[in-house]
């Protein structure tokens, strides 16, 4: 522990001794271990997390340390409070049945869901209490109100707006006390501790766990250790899988575990960065020789995969939303340019207008607005392409034709495709624009089902092809259209009939 003073240390030792019997109640047997060992683990991880911080100017002061370490021992105390019916948190729920008459499963469920608030209430009620429910009276030395705030904040959900607002409210920094930093450290340490504790199989075997709880168990079972490297500023989670299942489990378990912790780190990135608490998370896999690590039941593996699938679908959805947002944001800018161009149409020469239109079209294409890119340009190009110099006309026409082909609307080039073909013949066959244009025209005829024209265009393209590879590709296309339209003799390369197999 980074506590300097003996008095601070004794405060913590005293606290640990008093709360240990309560935490050992273990009234949540289906949950992972939440005895005082968990609290010890959390405070060890806090030590590791703040190690580099304590060597800096931003180090935690003694008061902050007392609050933080005390919260390490008190944040889960509400989980073990079987008489929670007396708390305001439960009373406010206005349950139909009195607390004692609630089914045991329901009581456990409520404790699990609301344990952070109950812990906070327990801490708060212990201030100056003659019969404190946490086993000791908390004096102001402990800053009990701040501890209560940390207890409550450790299980608030950032994704839920009400929880988020509450979190912000109770973690407002006080004089000399950086509550947001403390709350972040407690939450990260808690989640790391939960993930590193090796769940014991014998205990799991004695319980009838539902599949969700089993997934939880197995994920922890395979988490061998969490280590810190102060130099690289890395937190490493070590996994250990049964050798026979190493490959398949490696693809599932870490992928479930890592984002869970990573997300928590990211939630506090701003405050951590501000004070230099910068850790990077990484995963390491181990396959130990003669390992006795057990394999998961099939239904647990399946459930894990289902959860992964659900996560990936969420990610896809988010990615799509991001793409769509980018698209929505970029469209008005390009539309604005287009409107501006329209206004200048009378002023600009037809050639300049068309070239600027090409730029707008290209930009639309780049942001994925492909149809708009084509429609922006195609009719003006058809009408005014004669104003462009020949090689530019061919270059733009080729690109536009390629766009039409890619979008499956080759018929949009019907008005100017043939003209393009005639124009390209006027250029020197070695001009760099010629071959791409002839090749695209061949593809255009193929797409329009003009077999004879396509074959002629292929022959023309071959004549100006820059290398053998392109010639071979064009020949392949010719053979393919012959085969696809049933010209079997031509496709088979045998024009004199084919001998039948005996």
């Amino acid at each position, binding site marked *: 522990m980074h506590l300097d003073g003996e008095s601070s240390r004794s405060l913590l030792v005293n606290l640990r001794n008093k709360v240990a019997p309560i935490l050992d109640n273990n009234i949540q047997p289906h949950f992972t271990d939440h005895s005082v060992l968990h609290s010890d683990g959390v405070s060890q991880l806090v030590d590791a997390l703040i190690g580099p911080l304590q060597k800096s100017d931003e180090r935690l002061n003694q008061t902050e340390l007392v609050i933080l370490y005390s919260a390490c021992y008190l944040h889960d105390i509400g989980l073990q409070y079987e008489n929670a019916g007396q708390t305001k948190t439960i009373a406010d729920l206005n349950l139909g049945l009195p607390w004692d008459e609630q089914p045991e499963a329901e009581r456990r469920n409520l404790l699990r869901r609301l344990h952070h608030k109950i812990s906070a209430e327990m801490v708060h009620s212990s201030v100056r209490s003659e019969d404190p429910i946490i086993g000791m009276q908390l004096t102001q030395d402990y800053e009990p109100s701040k501890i209560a705030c940390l207890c409550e904040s450790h299980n608030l959900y950032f994704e839920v707006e009400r929880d988020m607002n509450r979190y912000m409210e109770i973690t407002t920094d006080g004089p000399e006390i950086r509550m947001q930093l403390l709350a972040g450290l407690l939450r990260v340490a808690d989640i790391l501790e939960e993930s590193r504790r090796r769940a014991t199989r014998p205990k799991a075997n004695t319980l009838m766990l539902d599949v969700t709880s089993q997934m939880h168990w197995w994920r922890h079972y395979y988490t061998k250790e969490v280590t810190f490297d102060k130099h690289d500023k890395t937190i490493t989670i070590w996994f250990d899988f049964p050798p026979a299942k190493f490959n398949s489990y490696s693809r599932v378990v870490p992928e479930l575990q890592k984002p869970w912790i990573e997300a928590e780190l990211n939630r506090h990135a701003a405050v951590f960065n501000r004070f230099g608490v910068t850790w990077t998370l990484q995963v390491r896999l181990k396959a130990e020789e003669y390992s006795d690590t057990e394999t998961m039941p099939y239904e647990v593996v399946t459930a894990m995969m289902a959860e992964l699938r659900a996560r990936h679908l969420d990610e896809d959805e988010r990615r799509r939303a991001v793409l769509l947002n980018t698209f929505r944001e970029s469209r008005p800018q390009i539309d604005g340019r287009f409107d501006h161009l329209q206004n200048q149409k009378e002023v600009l020469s037809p050639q300049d207008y068309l070239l600027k239109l090409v730029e707008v079209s290209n930009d639309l294409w780049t942001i994925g607005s492909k149809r708009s890119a084509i429609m922006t340009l195609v009719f003006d190009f058809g009408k005014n392409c004669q104003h462009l110099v020949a090689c530019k006309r061919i270059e733009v026409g080729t690109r536009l034709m390629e766009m039409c082909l890619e979008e499956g609307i*080759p018929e949009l080039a019907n008005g100017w495709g043939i003209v393009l073909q005639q124009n390209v013949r006027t250029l020197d066959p070695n001009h760099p624009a010629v071959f791409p244009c002839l090749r695209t025209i061949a593809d255009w005829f193929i797409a329009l089902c003009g077999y004879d024209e396509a074959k002629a265009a292929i022959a023309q393209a071959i004549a100006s092809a820059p290398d053998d590879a392109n010639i071979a590709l064009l020949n*392949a296309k010719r053979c393919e259209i012959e085969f696809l339209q*049933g010209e079997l003799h031509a496709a088979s390369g*045998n024009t004199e009939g084919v*001998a039948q197999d005996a």
Partner: protein
Amino acid sequence: MLKNSSPEIRIAITAAKGLAILGNPSDGISQLENLILSSSAKLDKLSALLVICEILHYDYRDNEGLEVFDKRISPMMGEFPEEIEIAVEFNRSDVMHSLLKNDDFYGTADRVTVAGVELWNHRAYYGVAEAREQGKHYESLPSIWRELMRAYYQGCWRPYRLASKLMATECMGLGWPHEAIYHAIIAGEKGTAAKLGEFLLLHGSPENLSRSTAKWLECTHLKRLFVTGCDILDGFMDAIPDEQFDEVFERVRTMASMPSSNWQEHSCVSRAWNSIAGLAWRLSATQAQRLADTAISHPIWNAEVEGGNRVLSVRDKMMNSLTACTSALPQKNVSQLVDKTLALVLERKQHNDYPDAIELLCRLGDVGGDDAKKRIKEALYTPGKPLDAYLLQVAPNFDAKLKEPESLSSDISNVADRIRKQVQWLPLSAEVKQLGGSFCFFTAIKDGKKLVIHSISTVQEHAILRHRKHLSLDAIQQLIDAMLEMITEPENLINNKIQLVQVLKSVGDVCSDAQAKQIFEVLSPIANGIIKEPALTQSAADSQNPLNPFKMGSGKPTDLRGVAIFTLACIERDKPGIFTNSLDAIIEVGLTEIDPQVRALSLAASREKPSISESEFTAIVLATRDSDPAVANAAFGALAHKKDLQLNRPQWRLLIHTAKLAAQSNAVSVRRAAAYTCSKLRTKIKISTLRKEVDTLLDSLAKDRCASVRQNAS
């Protein structure tokens, strides 16, 4: 997949596939194998191996294809993009399903969804359908062509087949059947193939027919492609140009002659014999001889029938084919064929093809003359051996005399009893016993009893009535009573009633006037359309309801009505004047009925009458213009079969005019009927100018694109 393969392999693939489809799969495969050896690119190897599998699949060599998949392709998996690997999986599924083996098809289908792979371009299909609906072929053709190319490059056989199917339909819509043939064969879909065959028959120009037949010959070397080819061929075989007929026949005969080592090859052989049965009437003597040799030397013809459960399913088709070409067979083959067919009846008898064998023997007896008949009679009608219904029925064909014909009368009570058992009301606990000559039975519970209705065959009744001259009046009465009872039975199936009414059509020359009137009493309401369908089985309307997924057709009331009209006309024919004018009134109404089957059978009834009135003539001529080809066909038939047809000049002109119109019809049966009627009646035309008109018409029909029309016109 193919787009990312090297140009060399892409060219080799088209060449190999082309060679294979043109009938040289070994060369195609070995060219690809050579490239696989020399190529280092994995995708090139995979593309080539898949094409080898495709060629093997086209040739019903799926076992070999599966081996390529499992030994050579599967080890390469895991190294290609998901779309390619999924295409491979689907192709393997095709092979597995062809071998009637299970695989993880739905797993692959789910993988497609999860991977977001688009094997089928549904947007393109929708665009094609919409453009086609609006008649915009200039849009639909390029769209489907692009989809065909996309599917080809993708390398997955299923989408490629679907695109080929759409392309075939598109080419048909554009009037390019010769192009549609190739795509339809690659598509391998029966419905499209059958439509194309029908399209060719109805709309094929001589040039189109010639090009289409040539394309058909090009593309049907491989067994799977041949089977689809047969689905097309069945539709247009009448229109195969004479100069290409022998080549087509030889292709089908060669496939039919193949010994089949597995069920796929067996289905190919079976399909070939099916098509031959349709082609056989066009065979020349040499072709008929080749066919007979093929049949009788085929392992299936000569296979021993082992045990009661083995059925040699192709034999019936072989015999049907031979039956259709017996008139073209040279005498020496007839004699040989009689022996070979007798062996099927006596030594290797099978119930499923026994009637076909008897039918073939009858035809051989007809064309083989007295010698053939004598040999058949001696073999089949041995003294002391009881005759089954089939042999009893055809005994006169071979001049076989019944030893004790009067014993038939004493057996009538059993026959009548069996007829009455068509519909039985049994206690709920009673076991249903199979009725002789019954195909199946239906049961229903009503009023605490079990109703059993047998679906019957009337072979026995027809057989006995073939010898009706030997039946006593009393025996005939028993038979009539039983049949009329079942015809009026409310719960009896319409199909049963139709068969019984058909049996009654032959009693006119042996029944008494009172018996004829008794029949009239029962059949005339039916002939007038007063028919109540059974309540406990599915109605005809329900059985035709497109929304009914479980169609159980048990006969249409309109068919029963038509058959009743026809039967009454047959009795009137054999007992002229027995029904006075009552039948004429029924026929007159029937001729103008909405239902085409009633109209057609009323016309058939008119045909049976010895003479027709002027008003009947007008109705019949009008009917030759009926929109339903079967009705028009029956109308021509009614005129052609009138021995004493006496028409005045305007009537002849009307008849010639309607025949000329019929000659322009798309329906082959109508053109054929017109040709038949003109050639039958031309000698009755005394006015030379009119006869010349008929001769000119017959000349033009003799050049019809369909062989059956040409045959009837000459």
